Each structure stands twice: as structure tokens, then as C-alpha cells.
């Protein structure tokens, strides 16, 4: 039930984001979703792509450090309070939410990527909620 996320380390230098994206494009890797987290010194690019392992390889050849890891991708309804209900159930189960961001996928509802301290337990908890949990195939 997990989705593979590719994270890429970026220095805060001009053109590095474009360079990373160009490498992916030149290698015909589709970007399904993209999110950038940054500080004054560096950034982390988080991507869901069509072929994460190949992406890691070609990025390495282009001198980028990257990592492939699991996250949970979910879709929740637009109803008021549905996000806080889902997150509330997770934190109540003593699970830490390490980070989350919106996914640019899906037509109805809001889609989110979620990284927690315990992905397995998180799945158990949110299964009881009215959310849709994406599979890799659905996104890819």
C-alpha cells in the first residue's frame, strides 16, 4: 500500500532544480507529483515518478544525491474537517507525522503524501477512515 517517493538533495544554487528536472526529462521519466521543501542553505525535492529506481540512477550519474523511500498517498474528501479527522486519528495512535504535502493528482477531493514514524500502523489507522489509499499502480 506504499508509494515510492524519490527525494533529491539540492544546494540552493541557481539552476539546480532545473538541472535535476532536465535529467529526468532526458531519460523519459514522468513526474507524477513534485514538491520542494527548502531552507536558506539547501532544498529537498520530493517526487513521485514513473520509474524511481531508474531516476535515482540517472540522477546519481548527474552528481545528485537522491534516495527512494516509502510514503503513504491518500485522497480525502473536500468535506470540512476531513483532513483534521484523518490526521487526528494518526497522532492519537502515537504516530509522528514527519512531513506531508499535497499531491498534484486526482480530480475529486485532495490528495496528500504522508511520511510518518510508523507507516504500517498508519495504514491500519487510516483504513478505518473514509479515505482512499493509493497504490503505486494507480499513480504510475
Amino acid at each position: 500500500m506504499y508509494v515510492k517517493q524519490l527525494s533529491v538533495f539540492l544546494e540552493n544554487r541557481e539552476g539546480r532544480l532545473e538541472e535535476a528536472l532536465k535529467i529526468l526529462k532526458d531519460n523519459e521519466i514522468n513526474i507524477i507529483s513534485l514538491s520542494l521543501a527548502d531552507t536558506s542553505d539547501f532544498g529537498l525535492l520530493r517526487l513521485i515518478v514513473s520509474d524511481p529506481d531508474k531516476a535515482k540512477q540517472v540522477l546519481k550519474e548527474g552528481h545528485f544525491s537522491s534516495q527512494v523511500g516509502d510514503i503513504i498517498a491518500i485522497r480525502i474528501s473536500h468535506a470540512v474537517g476531513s483532513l483534521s479527522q484523518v490526521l487526528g486519528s494518526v497522532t492519537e495512535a502515537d504516530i509522528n507525522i514527519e512531513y506531508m504535502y499535497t499531491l498534484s493528482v486526482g480530480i475529486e477531493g485532495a490528495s496528500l503524501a504522508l511520511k510518518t514514524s510508523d507507516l504500517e500502523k498508519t495504514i491500519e489507522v487510516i483504513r478505518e477512515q473514509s479515505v482512499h489509499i493509493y497504490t503505486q499502480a494507480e499513480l504510475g
Partner: protein
Amino acid sequence: MIWNEAKECMARADIEALQSARLKKLVDRVYHNVEYYRKKMQAVGLEPMDIQGIQDIEKLPFTTNEDLNQAYPLGLLAVPRSEIIRIHATSGTTGKPKIGAYTRRDVDIWAEGVARCMTMAGVTREDTVLVSYGYGLFTGGLGAHYGAEKIGAMVIPVSTGNTQKLITMLIDFQATVIACTPSYLLHIAETLEKENKVDQINLKCCICGAEPWTDEMRSQIEQRLHIKAYDIYGLTEMMGPGVANDCEAHAGLHIWEDHFLPEIVDPATGAHVAPGETGELVITTLTKEGLPLIRYRTRDLTSLAYDTCSCGRTMARIQRFKGRTDDMLIIKGVNVFPTQVEAALLTIDGTTPHYLMVVDRVDNQDTLEVQIEVEERFFSDEIRGLETLAGKVRAVLKTAIGLNARVKLVEPDTLEHSQGKTKHVIDKRKLYA
């Protein structure tokens, strides 16, 4: 194994008697053959007969870098030019190159020195020795080459500059010994790991030198390549590699005292320090014919141990180098050696990060920035994880050198990687401009 037991295990009294006899002859020889030395001795009212043995060594004036510059290229030659059969030189990036000028006997003694060192590392005539120091003016390549040949090993003179070629030779010839700089060997290890070829090599040991390295680098090399690492020491102006080497006890580098007379002096006053204390290593070449050096200031900071080693050798041991008198950076009034920074960084996860120290002066305040490449093993998909890494680096640096450094994480392969000596410091302060 010991190459020359009669010399390497001499009793202390016999070593001193031999050194005294050789020193007397040397002083006599340079006084009569080298005008530069004669003038220096005359300037302090010294005549050859004033030096009756090593107890009189402190009467002799030092030879410094400045003297070598003045006498460049062959002003200190102690034999007719026709006796010289080979020249070596340093790169001379910070001044005039340092010169090695060798008579046939000098070349023989050099090979003997390297043969003793390599035998100490377990090299025999059965071994295949891949020499990956540069061949040419640099002493590393030919120095290691002649020593390994003297032992009778099979020598592969790969030189530097082509890592892929080197790896091919390493594997195809199943080389058992490699001689190169430690940072280049780590680069080779990295390449072998990337290409999944570590289990195809047959190395048993390496003989590394030509740059300062730490115990951590040694254990890196030993663990990643499953070999034993030995440290070889020497300077072009003294002859090249093979002046000293560490044995399996790793208790310091045995220096060949029958050819080189070591002293430790206070770098500021020039006086001998108390036995066992740290100071600048000063060496007199007792047997060199071509370009003998009298009390040469090496600018290496270390101490000497004279007790008999567990390996059986009696030759004094140069202890861990604490740095160079001229590499020392003074940042905010604190003495900092790049080797200290390196040792601290290696404690983070036990491997060598690529790093660069950038020293600058902003508003009359010294600043130190340490750049670290975010290699895969340091990677975190969380901002917090990367900030923790930077924090850890700051903490180990603070402990090691007592300074607050700014830590900057940079992308892999952005810092200059070497195929030999690595540049780890950029000092933008222009203190001497």
C-alpha cells in the same frame, strides 16, 4: 620481516657511535666542498674540528627552506656535477622547487631505505607491487619503484592519472601491494565499490605516504579494501620516500638513523625539546653525497620515541605528525590543522566525507566554513535529518578545534576530488598580502 637486521636492530650505543663518526665526516666534507655551508659555519665561528660527535650537533646552524631557495638549484652540491646521475624536484607551488640530486650511491641508499620500509610492510620477492605514485620529477614513483625492485618484487609502474587503467592492472595482475597516496587509495576504494569489484582484487597491503593522513583514514582503507595499511615518510630534499616507515606495531615510523640523524626542536627558539616532547623534526643526512643537508628544518611537528619496538627494531620512531609548522592555520587565534578537522569529520559515521575548509575574514573577524558533500550514506528525506547532520558536524568540530564553524551541505562531486594530493583548505584572508 626485516630487510637489514644488522642495521635496523643495532644497539643504541652502536647507533650513536656510527652517527657520530658519520657526522664528523659529513661536516668535514661540506665545510671543504660547499661554500654555502662553509660560510654559514664561519659566520658562527665554527670549524670542522668543533664537531666531534652527535653531542655537538646543536652547535651547527640549521638549514632552512630559505637556504634551499637561495642555493637553488645546485648551490649545495657537495660533489662534482659529473657525479650526479639523477635529479628530482617538488612541484614548487609555493616557491622554488625543492631539489634532490643523487649520486649513484645516493640512489642505492635510497633503494635500500625503501626496501627496508617495504619489507616492514611484509613485501617480499613473491609480491606484485603496483606503484601509483607519480613517475617523473616527483620522488614517489621512482622511489617506490627502485625499492620494490631491490626486494625483487614484480613492479607495475602504473603512475597516476588513470584510475580505470589502474583498476584493470590491479585485477588482471592480481597485485598484492599498492603504493600511492592515501587519499588516492580512498578514491580507488570508492571506485571499486561503485563498480562492485572489491572482491576481485588480491591486495594484502598498501604503502601510503606523501601527504598527512589520520588513523581514521587508515582504518577506512583497511576495512574497505581488507588490507593492511603502512605509512611511509620522506621528503624530496632528504631523498624521497623511504626515510621512515611504520611497522606492524603501528607505534610510529622507524627512521633509518644510520643515514638520517633526527632531532626535535622548539620551532620558535630552535632549542632541543625535552625527550618525548613535540616539536619540529630536524634531520641531518649522514650519508648523502650529492646534496647533504645539515640540520634541515622539515617543518613537520612530531616527537620521537627511542625505546626498542615490539617488532625488534631499535631505530627511533617518529610519532604521529601533529601538522606542519607552515600548514597551521590560525583562526580566531586558535591553531588549527586540517588533519584535526579531518579526524573529527571521520568520527561522524566512520567514513571519509569529502570536505573543504573555507577560511575568510569578514569585518575583521575570522570565519570558518566547512563544506561537506551529502553523499548517499548521509542522505535523509527530511529537512530535519539533514539539519541534524549539519549540527553533528558543527558539534564534532567544536569539540576537536574549539571553534564554531558554519557547516554547509553541498551536492556530491562538487568539491575538487584529487588523484593525488587533495585540496582541503581555501584561505581567503590574504594575511600576507
